[in-house]
């Protein structure tokens, strides 16, 4: 019986095995001979409460071990099947391949691993919040292409109001303006049944044009309007003293904490509350929700507005959470990457957060590798983690399913 069942999965496992073997061979051939000396990863600073020794890895040997491991896992998968674990094994395989890559790049040098992980979290923030905004609105079946614009609006408002009235006020204003754009999107697509993609693109273009204009015409002249205070990192007592984990998770600014807390809250809201159940019903089968007396339109308005508020908060990160100054188009497509994180995260808040962390890791990896002066142009390096992500998503995550009514307007009779 199980033999019959597994035919298709067996093929998939074989492919996975093949990928791992190929990866192992590539690493052995190209990376191992080119990694003389030891790679030193700094884990803590000398001033830390509990300093931990550096992680010293012999380059060539480590890489050979990784490639051997990859080959072993690949061969096992290829020959024995074991479909149930193939996704997990692929994930582990990719993770150690990335580790081998890092060791190769660091061989003979040293660099701060903790610093890179810390940067990973920071860079994941806008993507995670963008993804979360996507989850909130697509769960009620409104496709939100406008997240990029909402992030930008949040960044701009944060800088402007922050400069005039302080960080807290700037943050509140950013959230409010994000929410306003969410409300506008809801009005356009729910009440006026405008095409959801067009409405989102409209918001993006509108915000980009308006903020660019003001920043080039007004901020140039009145610099004081674009000079907001930045939220500093807040150390969580005791926990921030833990080695590695402390600086990475417990010594960050409110945006990082906010992303984690919001992902948790959104999970609770969507999957454990009455309103969340209704919201998901509206995204899956609006007519059924309607026949049960759930107001489909109002549910969409509320959720899309909340999504806008989350995006506004994420947008404020660009200014109040990092440089304190607004630049034209400074969100640089993070809203769209957030949408990718939402899909990779299977329309789940925590999934989106994890996916955003992978992207954040990619981002900070690229930055660190550029510092390490590897022979590969950094643009190419930056691509590798994305490719890995796509493999992980295709192999590990599998087929994700969007809410059934996603993107479709609901028309009451």
């Amino acid at each position, binding site marked *: 019986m199980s033999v019959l069942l597994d035919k298709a999965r067996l093929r998939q496992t074989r492919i996975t095995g093949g990928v791992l073997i190929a990866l192992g061979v590539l690493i052995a051939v190209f990376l191992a001979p080119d990694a003389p000396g030891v790679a030193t990863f700094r884990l803590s600073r000398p001033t830390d409460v509990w300093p931990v020794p550096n992680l010293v890895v012999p380059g060539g040997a480590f890489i050979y071990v990784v490639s051997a491991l990859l080959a072993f896992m690949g061969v096992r998968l290829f020959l024995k099947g074991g479909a149930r674990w193939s996704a997990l094994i692929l994930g582990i395989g990719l993770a150690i391949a990335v580790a081998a890559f890092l060791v190769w790049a660091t061989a003979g040098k040293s660099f701060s691993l903790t610093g890179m992980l810390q940067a990973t979290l920071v860079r994941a923030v806008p993507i995670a919040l963008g993804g979360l905004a996507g989850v909130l609105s697509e769960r009620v079946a409104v496709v939100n292409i406008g997240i990029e614009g909402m992030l930008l609006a949040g960044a701009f408002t944060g800088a402007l109001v922050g400069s005039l009235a302080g960080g807290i006020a700037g943050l509140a204003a950013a959230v409010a303006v994000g929410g306003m754009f969410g409300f506008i999107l809801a009005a356009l697509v729910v009440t006026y049944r405008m095409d959801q993609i067009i409405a989102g693109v409209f918001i993006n273009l509108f915000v980009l044009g308006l903020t660019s204009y003001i920043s080039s015409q007004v901020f140039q002249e009145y610099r004081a309007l674009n000079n907001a205070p930045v939220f500093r990192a807040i150390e969580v007592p005791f926990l921030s003293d833990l080695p590695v984990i402390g600086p990475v998770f417990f010594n960050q600014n409110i945006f990082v904490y906010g992303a984690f807390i919001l992902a948790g809250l959104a999970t609770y809201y969507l999957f454990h509350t009455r309103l969340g159940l209704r919201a998901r*019903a509206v995204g*899956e089968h609006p007519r059924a929700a309607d026949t049960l007396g759930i107001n489909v339109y109002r549910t969409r308005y509320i959720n899309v507005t909340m999504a806008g508020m989350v995006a506004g908060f994420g947008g404020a990160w660009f200014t109040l959470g990092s440089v304190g100054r607004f630049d034209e188009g400074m969100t640089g497509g993070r809203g769209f990457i957030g949408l990718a994180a939402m899909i990779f995260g299977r329309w789940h808040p925590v999934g989106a957060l994890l996916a955003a962390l992978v992207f954040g890791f990619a981002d900070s990896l690229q930055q660190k590798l550029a510092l390490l002066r590897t022979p590969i142009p950094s643009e190419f390096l930056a691509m590798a983690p994305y490719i890995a992500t796509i493999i992980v998503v295709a192999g590990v995550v599998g087929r994700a399913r969007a809410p059934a009514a996603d993107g479709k307007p609901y028309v009451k*009779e």
Partner: protein
Amino acid sequence: MRVELKNITKRFGPVIANKGVNLTIEPGEVLGLLGENGAGKSTLMNVLCGLYDPTEGEIFIDDKPVVFDGPGDAIRAGIGMVHQHFMLVPVFSVAENVVLGVEPTGALDHLDLATARAEVERLSEDYGLAVDPDAIIETLPVGVQQRVEIIKVLFRSADVLILDEPTAVLTPQEVDEFFQIVRSLCEAGKAIVFITHKLNEILEISDRISVIRRGEIVGSGDPKELTRPELAEMMVGHPVDFDVARAPYAPREVILDVADLTVLRDHGAVAIDNLSLKVRSGEIVGIAGVQGNGQSALIEALAGLRRVASGRVTFDGTDITHISPRARHRMGIAHVPEDRQRAGLIGNFTVAENMVLDTYYGPPFAKGASIDWGRVHADAARVAEEYDVRTPSVFAAAAHLSGGNQQKLVVARELSRDTRFVIAGQPTRGLDVGSIAFIHAQLMAARDEGDGLLIVSSELDEIMAVSDRILVMFKGRIVAEYAPHIAPLDKGEIGLVMAGAAA
């Protein structure tokens, strides 16, 4: 609670679905509502349950006029409806679907699923509606989904229950159980509106019958004084011939040969277990069985929509076990799917588009890469006319047709082509008596032209009316075979075998 509809008119653009309807629903009484496909029954009930605003007219509850601003108001007023097309969220569990809209909650709006589960269990015990509260809807057979819908209405403790064709997908045993439920609800003082196309059912369960034709009430009566032919005539406006005329049984060579077929369900359980059967040209083979015994998987496997785990399907000497649905289609195999809305049509497409879903890509409808829409529309109009698909025009969205007319649309598309073999699941689900007779005649005509036909229906009467041979399916196997040309059929005996007596 007494509900009165006064002078209700409902228009959809130019279409008048209800015209000046007056109807009274009394507590403790079952009101049977009868009418042809497209007569306006569902529309009228959707007005009553607050889903549609009436164009004209008023609703009175206990002599007080009420206006429903959406179904929520109607539910609060005590009116609940089981819709003809289920209103269940496919990815939610049974318990989540049941409580949706009236959820038990704890602090912080926390969804109290434990209570929900317990409530479902209590209701399913009280009324004998067995369901697993944690099952995900999309994995359940339609018969079970039906039970979930009923539990949903009961959970809202409605005083008026509108049941729109609740028995269309139930087996005879399930119907008996269902009637017990209806009776006990009546005794509890609830008012029931019962819509069905099955005349014997309506005669059995109703206290009063109203007949609706082309949007108007054309008559009412006492079931004790009415007979089936009278009702049928009231419905369609002329006498209906119930008997299927059939030519003598003259089977030819084997056209479909299924050998040792094993098919799995989505989650790996065995749906069809080493099943073999043969169908000859010029015969109708009917598969009888209680729903959930693998019939759906059999149809899907033969139509190419479900992977065959092992075994062989041979069509006219060619191995078709693993070929695509389109290739099968090109060989002349027609497929009427069990669930018209899920697999039969695309709701947002027009009637004409739906009519050519299977043939748009080749002549005569396609010229190179473009579609000859004039041809498509003309052809669709002709077929719709021939099969009596009641639609304002071929440009109407399929989703706006009445349930029975959607079914006729699917059947028309599949049978109007040149076919050699027909696989049909519940071909007359939701059709009125006139339409059933017509579809049966079409199936019979296909047989007499030399097609092989494999028909699955949970309606034993239908299977007995059309089949040349009857195979009974139980737990994924064929457990018995009957042939009316060899020995007369015994409905009671077949019913027992369906329930597993022979296994």
